[in-house]
């Protein structure tokens, strides 16, 4: 039977077939409903591995200790013991292979994070010794007078 009615039907079938083929090609093979069902479960499980592959930039003080044992011991005995090396020296990724990759921050603003006085008695901040940035040697860097690895000692520049 030959009829003009069939032609749109073929077109529709062709479109459906094209969508199905495109879907097969474009959707990753492992995409599907995970353990959490239709509401929360849809994902591509291989993406979890991709997130685990992100490079670790902050290697922690335990990594620095391998070579800088003296510095590590000094700060661990000081009131600054809880501060990790990388907070001020920058992330250790690329160090020691590329010495320039360390970004040592000697700015006043770095010390200011804790030591610019804020009178917040209901917070831990109010219990930290602090200065008034307007009156306490505003032109100088803190490390001129204070040694950050042990603030009880005088600075060296």
């Amino acid at each position: 039977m030959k009829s003009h009615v069939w032609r749109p039907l073929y077109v529709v079938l062709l479109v459906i077939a094209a969508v199905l083929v495109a879907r097969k090609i474009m959707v990753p093979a492992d995409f599907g409903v995970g353990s959490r069902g239709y509401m929360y479960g849809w994902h591509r499980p291989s993406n979890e591995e991709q997130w685990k592959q992100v490079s670790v930039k902050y290697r922690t003080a335990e990594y620095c200790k391998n070579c800088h044992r003296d510095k590590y011991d000094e700060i661990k005995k000081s009131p600054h013991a809880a501060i990790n090396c990388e907070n001020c020296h920058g992330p250790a990724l690329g160090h020691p292979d590329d010495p320039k990759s360390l970004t040592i921050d000697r700015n006043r603003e770095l010390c200011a994070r804790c030591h610019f006085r804020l009178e917040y008695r209901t917070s831990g901040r109010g219990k930290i010794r602090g200065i008034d940035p307007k009156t306490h040697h505003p032109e100088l860097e803190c490390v001129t007078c204070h040694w950050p690895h042990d603030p009880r000692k005088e600075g060296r520049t």
Partner: protein
Amino acid sequence: MISRRNFCKKSLLMAGGLAIPLAALELFDPKRLLAEKADGKKTRWVFLVDTNKCVGCGFCVKACKIENEVPYDANVTRTWVERYIVTRDGKTHIDSPKGARDGFETTKIDIGEGKFEEIKNDDIDKAFFVPKLCNQCDNPPCVQVCPVGATYQTADGVVLVDRSWCIGCGYCIMGCPYGVRFFHPVYHVAEKCNFCYHRISKGMQTACVDACAFGARRVGNIRDPNDPVTKVIMTERVNVLKEEYGTTPQVFYLGLTKEVK
């Protein structure tokens, strides 16, 4: 010769003895009970924030941005610290300049559009800092609204975004009641805190936890009864943010007050 009374006694005893299942003789093991109470999974990452200890130094924000490659000068961040100042007139002032990437270095409150408000020390009733990050909810609304299945929750409870699959529609950014999600300025897809999944899955701490010198941030596994974080959550008075949304958030706070939103 067995009497009728004796026969009845002994058969009843026998039947009773057979009825006791072997499991009844097993000793009660609270650890096994805790493990079986849930779904048998061994890990469920949770976070504990002690707002009493936070001093607003912002080292956590700095470390997070560098560790997770969030552009440093863009005004978006996976974690941030809010300052709350409650004054005598009953007003609550909240700010978080640059997400506290550089800490809080002034008594002035950032009220937006480059304007600042000076608050006198004598007017302060209470002032404190609250770190914020993704709550890795048990019922994550951001995952529910994703139309393409680009964001999902792993078996250990962390909500991740598939960057190659996200279409950037922004539903999840709207759906998150905690405002944790944003568009990544480089990849142009949804971005969020994932408890440094690459670090915790290697047995390390998150970058923000390592950067915190005051112990205000801690990450732990709530399925491990010996985890110090689990012990605090189970025994001390912890609270969560916006419980009324039914998201079952998994970031627990010590020292929250009603002013914290």
